[in-house]
């Protein structure tokens, strides 16, 4: 079966098994930031944005992504040009083993997209599906709040330049 999706802004036509999960399809297509964790929707490692909403790709059949826009961490930024969230995660030490980071970053980006001024409680609520078993949660919450400020600053200067 073929599915047509837009991944990180680029169109892809992927040949998939009808019962394949999106996580496996994305990884096979080279998007290795997407991690396989529990495989049952409990840990959030596999989170990707589907049409702007973060969801667990391990319990999402690839067929459901037909025509959808998908965002993975590769589409957020890279080491040369990181997203404010990636920068804040790195600088705050929110990353030890790093396995949960891609999913957490996607959930955090979804939060900032809909709410540029989150409180710590908003961050906890938005990242409630992303388990972290080594770093813990305090640094990650701080990182999202720091990034929110940075995003606002850059969008202000961009607007100022216009």
């Amino acid at each position, binding site marked *: *079966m073929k599915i047509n999706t837009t991944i990180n802004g680029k169109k892809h036509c992927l040949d998939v098994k*009808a*019962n394949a*999960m999106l996580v496996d399809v994305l990884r096979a297509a080279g998007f290795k930031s997407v991690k396989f964790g529990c495989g*049952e*929707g*409990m840990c*959030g490692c596999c*989170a990707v944005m589907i049409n702007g*909403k*973060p*969801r*667990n790709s391990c*319990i*999402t*059949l690839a*067929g*459901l992504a*037909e*025509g959808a826009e998908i965002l993975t961490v590769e589409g957020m930024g890279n080491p040369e040009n990181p997203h404010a969230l990636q920068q804040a995660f790195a600088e705050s030490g929110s990353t030890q083993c790093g396995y949960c980071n891609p*999913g957490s970053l996607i*959930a955090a980006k*979804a939060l900032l997209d809909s709410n540029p001024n989150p409180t710590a409680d908003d961050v906890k*609520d*938005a*990242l*409630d*599906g*992303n388990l972290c078993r080594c770093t813990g949660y305090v640094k990650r919450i701080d990182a999202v709040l720091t990034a929110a400020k940075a995003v606002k600053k850059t969008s202000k200067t961009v607007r100022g330049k216009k």
Partner: protein
Amino acid sequence: MLKKLTRFYYPETIEDACKYLGSKDEKTAVIAGGTSEALRQDNSIEALVDISRVKELNHIRVDSSSIRIGAATPVQNIYKSTDLKGPAGELLKTVAGKIGSTLLRNSITAGGNLAAVFPWSDLLPAWLVLDAEVVLRKGKPKRTVPVENLLNEKPAKFMAPDEIIAEIIVPTAGKGTGTSFCKFAKTANDYSMITVAALISIKGDSIVKARLALNAVTIAPVRCHEAEKMLEGKKPTAQLFAEVATAVAEKTEVRKDFRASKEYKREVLEVLVRRSLEEACVRAGK
């Protein structure tokens, strides 16, 4: 899992969706959020009908007498809704927010949650205490039935193979009514061990309407009709609520699972029923 699956259909209307269902030539099933369908051990299904793009199934509409929620509405939209207000709306928001996590709530739909009927399906006791009705569509023809009837007979049996849940309708409740929901689980996003929903309407100094429903602690969601009868017509007192809670805990057939013993759950159930009734009563007075 889903080993025979070969294709997906992407209907845009309810009528189109129903056309793909109930066919003799091809075994099909509805998929909405896909959170339970994806993991199904069923190896006979050949095609899935993705109803998540049917626009007429995705809405939250509120008017003076009712709340209408489209079956394919993700429960996250219920949780974050700014239109849902009052005792009924607030209850739905609270319950939706207690389902799984953000990532799951963006997938799980109101209709999928109702059709799949698991003990841990948190919205089910809420629909029961709100006297919710469900609109079932079989192409154009539709029927509207109480959610309680659908649940008592199990949706898979109650509905025809080419019938789908289209909408859930909840009458809004006005002043004098209070609602409450308690979820007891090992962690904030683990599956529920006990859920209790309550609704109490007070006029003058007596309870004119009482609703109480449970899930998770039981095998399937139940409405506690006897407890409701014990409450209606009486003065709302702490003693009455304690008596009702004891009676409910004694009579309920507690489900066994690995998380906790039946005895333990029965004790917690009594506390939660009492608390829910007290809380609903306080809110009814506001």
